[in-house]
């Protein structure tokens, strides 16, 4: 099957991060066309018709999100969520370095569509080199007259600005990101109001993920039907899947949504060292584990992954081979969420601390038989009680690993396992 790159066109086109190369391949023509030939509403309708869904995790229809912004003129913003921090996710990193103009063009088109005059690209603080690169890209745009005042002889003006985070996973949550951008603690806001109504500086704002926006210029160029011909009916287009962990070739793989997981695993060279797979984490640290046999029958789109009881999320596939201790996996993810809890609500702040403490015991050979009951109890006290999704995400690995791989936990607490018991019986019987 030929690879179809919509987002990672940098894989075929060298130096696509340079403005002249990007323009030589049609870059910013759709930007100019939108501003000079299309009504804002037409742009929104086209993105709606294409069925583009958010690539940051939630899969929310992008055109619909744009249409929630009130039409009345006034101060509005587009904010690019480039705070990529989910463990196992490195797609926006590649897009930002290798194909930055495509997502910026998408963001500028979004700005035109909702009537915003400023785009902020919020990058995680660790993307320092990437931000340096982006600022130079913006300077090039300004020199070329592609951003600035009265673009292409119209009354429309648009600026792109880069703004840094400083090391906080929670700022990937859109309202926490907006608080961070306003110089507040990066803690989530109560919704409603949604950002479309009251976002950055309480002005109507659209927050979109980097990969989502990178799809937009090609949707304008080739049309909604072209886009809908890729992927599935409910999940059109491609998805960049970050494959990491126990595979031969960890990398980003852009595939049409609906591609069988088996094919993605083959692209990544299969499970490494000739081993077999034990489980898949499909959305970084945030989604429940999927056992190998179930994952092998699954397709890579929101609907198919949901039928496994897990989530596609940002499609960061962490592959776990047969030697993996699932208690270690849950302990690592728990450490992450405890570190990244913003402290706003007590179930998440205190609960992840307790989970980390118990997992510390389990992974240091200090596990006690009652720890499993305590873990379940703490999970129950966090579940459904948190202010934002981070607290719920923190439960995915503990809960699913306990349900699917009980033997790993029994080993960790020193309880006899079924296999061990059978062996002991055999020894007693003199076999």
């Amino acid at each position, binding site marked *: 099957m030929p690879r179809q790159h919509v987002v990672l066109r940098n894989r075929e086109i060298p130096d696509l991060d340079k403005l002249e190369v990007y323009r030589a391949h049609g870059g910013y023509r759709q930007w100019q066309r939108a501003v000079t030939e299309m009504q804002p509403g037409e742009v929104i309708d086209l993105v709606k018709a294409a069925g583009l869904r958010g690539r940051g995790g939630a899969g929310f229809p992008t055109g619909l999100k744009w249409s929630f912004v009130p039409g009345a003129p006034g101060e509005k913003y587009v904010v690019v969520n480039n705070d990529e921090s989910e463990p196992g996710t490195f797609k926006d990193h590649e897009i930002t370095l290798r194909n930055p103009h495509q997502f910026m063009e998408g963001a500028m088109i979004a700005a035109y569509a909702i009537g915003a005059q400023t785009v902020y690209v919020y990058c995680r603080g660790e993307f320092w*080199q990437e931000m*340096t690169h982006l600022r130079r890209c913006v300077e090039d745009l300004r020199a070329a007259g592609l951003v600035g005042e009265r673009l292409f002889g119209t009354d429309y003006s648009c600026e792109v600005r880069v703004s840094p985070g400083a090391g906080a996973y929670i700022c990937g949550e859109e309202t926490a990101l907006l608080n961070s951008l306003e110089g507040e603690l990066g803690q989530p806001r109560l919704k409603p109001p949604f950002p479309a109504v009251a976002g950055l*500086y309480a002005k109507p704002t659209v927050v979109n993920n980097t990969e989502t926006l990178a799809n937009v210029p090609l949707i304008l160029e080739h049309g909604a039907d072209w886009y809908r011909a890729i992927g599935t009916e409910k999940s059109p287009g491609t998805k960049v899947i970050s494959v990491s962990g*126990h595979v031969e070739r960890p990398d980003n793989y852009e595939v049409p949504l609906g591609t069988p997981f088996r094919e993605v695993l083959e692209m990544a060279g299969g499970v490494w060292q000739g081993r077999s797979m034990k489980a898949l984490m499909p959305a*970084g640290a945030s989604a429940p584990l999927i056992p190998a046999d179930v994952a092998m029958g699954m397709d890579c789109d929101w609907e198919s992954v949901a039928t496994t009881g897990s989530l596609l999320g940002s499609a960061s596939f*962490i592959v*776990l081979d047969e030697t993996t201790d699932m208690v*270690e996996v849950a302990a690592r993810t728990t450490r992450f969420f405890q570190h990244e809890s913003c402290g706003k609500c007590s179930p998440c702040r205190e609960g992840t601390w307790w989970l980390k403490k118990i997992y510390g015991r389990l992974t240091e050979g200090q596990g006690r038989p009652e720890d499993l009951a305590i873990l379940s109890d703490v999970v129950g006290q966090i579940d459904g009680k948190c202010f934002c999704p981070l607290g719920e995400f923190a439960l995915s690995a503990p809960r699913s690993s306990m349900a699917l791989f009980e033997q790993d936990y029994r080993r960790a607490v020193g309880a006899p396992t079924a296999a061990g018991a059978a062996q002991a019986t055999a020894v007693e019987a003199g076999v």
Partner: protein
Amino acid sequence: MTTGLLQRTFPTEVAAAIDNYPPGRQASAVLPLLYLAQAAYGRVTADAVVEVATLLEIDETRVRGIVGFYSLFKEEPHGRFVVHYCTDLPCMLRGAGELLPDVCRAFGAEPGQTSEDGLFSLEEAMCLAACDRAPMMQVNLEYFHDLSPERLDEIVADLRAKAAAGPAAPFGLGPPSEIVRPD
């Protein structure tokens, strides 16, 4: 009020950071200014907090809270090179745990500590979005991928040479070498 060290060291950068946001929204520049303050003062000291708060006309307590909230602001003294070595799940699955003793040996520091010569502060980091090239780390926010014991020795030798060659490129102001498109 006398001009603070941040304002004296980076007058142009401070003005540009504030200009990056709409008039009256100067509080938005708190993170960019804290990076600059960290570079000017060597770390985010109490004086640095006061200067940032004064420049932005916001409360000192608010700035102090922000410093504590985000991982990349350092209040304690640290080495010239801050090493963020990833020990999050995807890197651990590809040998980051096994390599950690070599990392400590190469930099001469345990996680959370600074080497005796004051050059390297080693920290375990959460995911840095480069899991395809694990084990990996950032040194003063510059990426280093596909680490091995030999590669670590090369990197440390390069960093030592850089330290001997010129003045410090302060942590937080960008990588020591302005590599725009790393490999």
